[in-house]
């Protein structure tokens, strides 16, 4: 079939663009694309309380803020690089099981295991040793760290925030050889 020069030209360019585009998404070298809907607003995160809300019981919507990088493999990988470079691995161990700092792979979270609660613990710091990173790391980097920590499997999904606060979650049996939990 005879294909006109213009058609061939057009197809060639399109394929070329697609090819380049696919390359840029698959290579590990480029930065993670910022999430389409951007990052959660600062005041929205600030509204997530650390403890109960006095005078009010029940759900607090701010706790349901999800991690914009949830499940993003590039973000998880970059979160892992940050985890090592920012010395998180020094306190929480390279495998996340903790040493000086608590175990991040188990299901016990002293300050909460929801994505926004983990975010706040990193950003604000916590008593008894957790430094405050909010001035040094921008929100994008902290959300990447949260994504990496979520990949350990011990955190709580944002949509389960009510169950997490009420304790409606199964416990875990610790095999004898696993380190006993240190709150």
């Amino acid at each position: 079939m005879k294909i006109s020069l213009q058609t061939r030209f057009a197809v060639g360019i399109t394929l070329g663009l697609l090819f380049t585009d696919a390359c840029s998404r698959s290579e590990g070298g480029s930065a993670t694309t910022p999430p389409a809907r951007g990052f959660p607003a600062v005041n929205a995160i600030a509204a997530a309380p650390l403890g109960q809300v006095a005078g009010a019981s029940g759900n607090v919507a701010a706790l349901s803020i999800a991690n914009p990088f949830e499940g993003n493999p590039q973000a998880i990988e970059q979160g892992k690089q940050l985890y090592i470079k920012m010395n998180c691995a020094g306190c929480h161990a390279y495998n996340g099981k903790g040493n000086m700092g608590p175990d991040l792979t188990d299901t016990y979270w002293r300050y909460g295991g929801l994505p926004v609660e983990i975010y706040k613990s990193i950003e604000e710091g916590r008593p008894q040793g957790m430094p405050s990173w909010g001035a040094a790391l921008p929100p994008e980097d902290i959300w990447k760290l949260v994504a990496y920590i979520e990949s350990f499997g011990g955190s709580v999904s944002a949509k389960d925030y009510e169950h997490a606060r009420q304790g409606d979650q199964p416990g875990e049996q610790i095999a004898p050889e696993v380190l006993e939990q240190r709150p």
Partner: protein
Amino acid sequence: MAYHQTFGPAVDRITSLGWGLAIVSMLVVAIISLLLLVGIFRKRGHSQGLAVRSDAGGVSWIYVGTGISTVVLVGCMLWTMVVTAAVSRPPKTPALTIEVTASQFWWSVRYESATTARSFITANEIHIPVGEPVRVELKSADVIHSFWIPQLAGKMDVIPGQTNMSWLEADKAGHYRGQCAAFCGAQHAHMALLVVADSASAFAAWQESQLSEMSLGNGEGQKVFQTHCAVCHTIRGVSPEGIRGPDLSHLKTRGTLAAGLLMNTPANLAAWIANPQSFKPGTRMPAQILSGAELTAVTSYLNTLD
């Protein structure tokens, strides 16, 4: 055509080889073209009928052509091998070794020294003494890069997990631009490097100034630096060993910022710190959330680092 001009024994002979091979190739093309044209436009003799007879002169053309080609090709091959061997290592033991670690999208440079206390780190700018070979050990912090100073050294890939070796020598004082030569990510094109060849005394002076430590102070700019920048950047004597980003000790002595992207002026520095992504989207340095006063303070502090 500036990259055809070379200034060091590591590449001078390669340039000559390059020109030589180019000329040989051009001559070959010219000769073959000529022969082809002669063959096309040669007057043909009348046909002598269909009798087949041996063409006495044809085979000798083949012998001659093959013979000349072989000699020329073998000659070129030997020349190439000799030149490659000659430039593969420095002519004498280098007195100076530097370790260059390539990251996305900048270069960390560590000056080794026999006296441990005289080894130090800088970034994106290499100073070498004129006329002395310098050994360069190449390491990568993340992906494959390639170290290329066109006027001083050929390309040498920088591969994670192994140490490659290259060397530099400059015959003349001056500034030489380098470039990452293996695609490494979104800002590969903006991953440049500056090599400055100094006279022996100027180099010694530069080394001493680089070794000196800034004194601790209490200024506003320094406070902003400690809070926002020190987790990634080092300033010798003030905040040691932030390793995620380039070492900023003696920043004022450098000619460029952001791996050769911007000239090192106060305005550029402030604009870069405020939003690096606008200049180099995809660079690893995040946009800083600084107030106007904080930005002014830290920029003026950094401008004192000479």
